[in-house]
């Protein structure tokens, strides 16, 4: 073996087998999330040193029960394993199985094995065998399955070195197929297939024929050959069923000889927990309490770090201003780049806390109970129990949430879920809400425990949720799509969450947000700064004009400077833009400065705070910069002499942000996932119109 060779490894396995734990163990922090070419499913990749000479490039394929995909995520597994030209095509496959559900896990193993790619079986949770009363004749099993088997425990970090040793030797693995499907089903039919596709393994040809959608990577010639066999779809379907039954027969026979379980160990805890967690009253009570806990924690825990981050970047900005030579470059740094970066960093606490909870709930197995509990209710709104997880994820960011809807089998249920997700209160709305709430709602406790500001936030969450549900009902009745749904979910055993997995999940999601949405925010902050600090001739002559005005005679130097700065802002490019839309937004109670922030928010909501920060810091040139909140609180409406962010304007803004579709990233992902511009355009116009009407009504009632 030559120095530093690289071997491509794919991890395949059922959900809940600890596949991702193994991936985390093998790669550590050496992992990244990329995209599969052309589609947006997260592709988790990582590097692992196998020996001094060998490095493994590992990809963690989406969890699946079978190689025959029923959802979009699962299609990835099939595509990766069938397409030899795919960059991710593995040199070897590790099938991760779990000791307790070995029978079902072996179905997938038997399918992979028949592809005749070097394959090894890793049986996880081997440390629990004794406790669960399971005994396994490993030598016999190896022989019967024609494979190497490694017993591992991802939780206890055992068996990993043995696994690595075995990988080194992958070229010598047995690649014989496990099940010879042809003889048992229809030998004439299968020998025809064999004759037409001599270059493929029989199972691969069979898979190509059975898939409903032709795999995109095949040549024209192959397509027409495949279509020849596809004609008799009833027969193919029948044979697929026969194949599955046949595979289970083989597996049963093998396990009869090798696997013993002492049934005295009943899974008592599981049924007790199930009875409570899916109870018709306690089930919902517990679920509601968990949601309440999550949302109040986000607000309470994230508050302090967010204030610190906000203050830190305000200070940094000031520091840069005072210590760098004055000029355009310094202004760009102090007023554009630093607040821009701050505007991204400030989200980290909220996103991290939310994903902390979501990943704990998923790890424990509780999420499946939520799906079970909510399915019937969600169906009344045209969605599925599986829509609950995307809707909850939507409270972090709509983009991963829309991608998480891929495991909903029915197209109608999935489409409705995708369309209403942007109503849920995503973390990009939180800074907007947080700053407005802290300006207009007093920080008081009522009844001793409930924080008034926290309750307002809770109300906004409920509002977003209500909007999502109501529009789902509307869509359910309007959309004429046949609802052929497949709803089969596994109810995994409960387990304690692995801190390591939770940690990696939080890191990964936070990173994805920073480098995805963060880029847009930073870029826009700089563009905004430029538009705010440049303008046409009126802007350039600001100093001359303001000084020459009679009313300004006798003003102190500082006040004069302030006047010039605000005159400048008003006549900058962005000031002009804000002025243009002022008549439209006036009915909602906004001025042109808020208008600027509103325009920028259509790129991404969170830009609102950053935009106001940029606008006010350009305006307050030469003064203490202060925090964004202080600057907003000090802002006065020149006509009334009252505070700009009063109760009516504040509520109007809160409502506008609750309903409006202001996120380019989300629109782009909806377009990709629905393969049509129709749906994102519907979201953009429908939601924004609703937001406008509601904000106008609210402002006029309150003021």
């Amino acid at each position, binding site marked *: 073996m030559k120095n530093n060779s690289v071997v491509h490894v794919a991890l395949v396995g059922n959900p809940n087998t600890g596949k991702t734990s193994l991936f985390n163990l093998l790669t550590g922090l050496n992992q990244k999330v990329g995209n599969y070419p052309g589609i947006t499913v997260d592709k988790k990749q990582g590097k692992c040193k196998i020996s001094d000479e060998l490095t493994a490039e590992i990809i963690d394929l989406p969890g699946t029960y079978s190689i025959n995909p029923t959802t979009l995520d699962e299609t990835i597994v099939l595509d990766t394993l069938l397409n030899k030209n795919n960059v991710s095509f593995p040199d070897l496959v590790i099938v991760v199985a779990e000791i307790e559900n070995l029978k079902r896990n072996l179905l997938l193993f038997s399918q992979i094995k028949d592809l005749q790619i070097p394959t090894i079986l890793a049986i996880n949770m081997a440390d629990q065998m004794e406790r669960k009363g399971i005994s396994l004749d490993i030598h016999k099993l190896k022989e019967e399955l024609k494979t190497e088997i490694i017993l591992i425990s991802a939780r206890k970090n055992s068996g990993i070195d043995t696994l690595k040793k075995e990988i080194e030797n992958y070229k010598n693995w047995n690649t014989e197929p496990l099940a010879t499907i042809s003889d048992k089903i229809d030998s004439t039919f299968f020998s025809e297939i064999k004759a037409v596709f001599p270059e493929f393994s029989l199972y691969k040809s069979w898979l190509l024929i059975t898939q409903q959608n032709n795999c995109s990577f095949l040549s024209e010639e192959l397509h027409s050959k495949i279509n020849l066999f596809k004609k008799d779809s009833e027969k193919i379907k029948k044979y697929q069923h026969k194949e599955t039954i046949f595979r289970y027969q083989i597996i049963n026979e093998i396990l009869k000889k090798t696997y013993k379980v002492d049934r005295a160990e009943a899974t008592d805890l599981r049924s007790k927990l199930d009875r409570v967690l899916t109870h018709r009253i306690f089930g919902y009570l517990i679920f509601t309490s968990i949601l309440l806990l999550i949302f109040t924690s986000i607000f309470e825990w994230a508050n302090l770090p967010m204030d610190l981050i906000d203050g830190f970047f305000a200070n940094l900005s000031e520091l840069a201003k005072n210590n760098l030579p004055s000029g355009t470059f310094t202004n760009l740094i102090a007023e554009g780049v630093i607040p821009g970066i701050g505007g991204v960093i400030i989200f980290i606490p909220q996103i991290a806390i939310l994903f902390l909870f979501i990943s704990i709930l998923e790890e424990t197995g509780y999420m499946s109970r939520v799906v079970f509990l909510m399915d*019937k209710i969600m169906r009344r709104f045209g969605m599925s129990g599986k829509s609950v997880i995307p809707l909850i994820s939507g409270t972090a960011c709509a983009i991963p949430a829309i991608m998480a809807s891929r495991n909903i089998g029915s197209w109608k249920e999935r489409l409705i879920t995708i369309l209403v997700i942007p109503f849920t209160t995503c973390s990009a709305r939180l800074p907007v809400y947080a700053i407005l709430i802290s300006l207009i709602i007093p920080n008081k406790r009522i009844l001793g425990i409930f924080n008034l500001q926290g309750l307002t936030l809770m109300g906004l969450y409920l509002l977003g949720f209500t909007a999502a549900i109501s529009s789902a009902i509307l869509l359910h009745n309007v959309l004429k799509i046949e609802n052929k749904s497949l709803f089969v979910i596994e109810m995994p055993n409960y387990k304690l969450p692995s801190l390591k997995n939770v940690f990696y999940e939080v890191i990964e999601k936070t990173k994805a947000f920073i480098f995805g949405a963060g880029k847009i925010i930073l870029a826009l902050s700089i563009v905004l700064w430029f538009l705010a600090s440049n303008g046409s001739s009126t802007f350039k002559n600001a100093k001359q004009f303001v000084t020459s005005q009679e009313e300004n005679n006798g003003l102190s130097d500082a006040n004069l400077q302030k006047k010039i700065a605000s005159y400048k802002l008003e006549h900058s490019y962005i000031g002009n833009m804000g002025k243009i839309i002022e008549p439209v937004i006036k009915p909602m109670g906004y001025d042109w400065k808020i208008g600027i922030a509103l325009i920028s928010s259509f790129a991404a909501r969170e830009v609102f705070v950053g935009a106001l920060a940029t606008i006010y810091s350009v305006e307050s040139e030469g003064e203490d910069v202060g925090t964004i909140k202080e600057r907003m609180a000090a802002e006065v409406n020149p006509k009334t002499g009252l505070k700009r962010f009063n109760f009516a304007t504040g509520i109007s803004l809160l409502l506008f942000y609750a309903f409006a579709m202001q996120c380019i990233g989300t629109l782009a992902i909806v377009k990709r996932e629905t393969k049509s511009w129709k749906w994102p355009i519907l979201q953009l116009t429908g939601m924004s119109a609703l937001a406008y009407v509601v904000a106008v009504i609210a402002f006029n009632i309150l003021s």
Partner: protein
Amino acid sequence: MSATIANLRVGESGIIEEFSLDLIPLCLLEMGCLPGKEVKLLQIAPFNDPLYIKVNGSHLAIRKELALQIKITKL
């Protein structure tokens, strides 16, 4: 008329009898729901749907509409 999974009461079991290939999705077969296997109804969700079953070692939740297609002999 023979019984289906939807006719079971919580705690009751049956043996899966026959399959109507058009109505049972392949994925359910692949999860272990095979003819001749014992199926036990563990729980019913609030509002009587979906059903939580144990079959061939797998714990699954399926909707009632699907459960109605799977014929069984009650035990």
